[in-house]
């Protein structure tokens, strides 16, 4: 039944967007987590989305070409390669011998834009689910 697959697809997208919101929240929370060495500093985390391919056993015989994928999945979460922010703050308790502290490479503006994009995508997929629900409910009244 293809319409019930819509629930899986929209559900996978909502899960993926939730992961994205989670990384954004983590990045924002740690935006000012200073440290005294480059290795220990928090780096912005970003999820990588990928098409969730259909497993061969899930593929119905006669609709093979009509199944492009089954939603979206989070393939991995990568750490941003952007350079860390170094600040000369000799009075800071975390400062190293030269008086520098390291700030994470979190771009707060970018994170806010990401957050809005993720929450909008979440809403749209909730709408998709709702419409599919109405279509299914209507189908159940067939012949009444």
């Amino acid at each position: 039944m293809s319409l019930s697959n819509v629930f899986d697809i929209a559900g996978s997208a909502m899960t993926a967007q939730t992961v994205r919101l989670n990384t954004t929240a983590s990045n924002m929370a740690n935006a000012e987590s200073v440290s005294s060495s480059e290795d220990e500093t928090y780096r912005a985390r970003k999820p990588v989305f990928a098409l969730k391919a259909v497993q061969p056993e899930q593929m119905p015989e006669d609709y093979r070409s009509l199944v492009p994928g089954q939603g979206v999945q989070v393939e991995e979460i990568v750490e941003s390669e952007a350079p860390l922010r170094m600040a000369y703050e000799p009075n800071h308790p975390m400062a190293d011998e030269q008086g520098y502290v390291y700030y994470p490479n979190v771009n707060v503006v970018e994170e806010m834009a990401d957050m809005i994009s993720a929450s909008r995508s979440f809403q749209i997929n909730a709408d998709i689910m709702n419409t599919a629900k109405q279509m299914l409910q209507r189908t159940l009244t067939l012949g009444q």
Partner: protein
Amino acid sequence: MAINFDSALGVHDDALALRGRRAEVLANNIANADTPNFKARDVDFAAVLAGQLDSYELPLEQTAVRHQDEFLSPDTAADLLFRTPHQPSVDGNTVELQEEMARYTENAIRYQASFQFLNSKFKGLTSAIKGE
């Protein structure tokens, strides 16, 4: 005389099935709106429907039980097509969310239309059986 459901219901049951399929394809497009390098797909509904209607005019010979003379063989009638984006994006994604939403909603409305047709076919059959 047996009731032949295929001829009684006409094209509408197949249309309903295809609308359901298309809802899945479009939902998958929308789900992957943020996936890099994802290419949006769609069903060429007219081509599939044309394949369906042709078979009424020129039925295929059925030499085995599993042969089906009509429809939904989207494998041959129309493969899933790729969409041409109006504004290509940097990450290679060709989903245009507002268009996909419009198509998905339109598809849902047309699904309801097909449903109405199918429902009235069944109502007609029911009243014929009752003979009231």
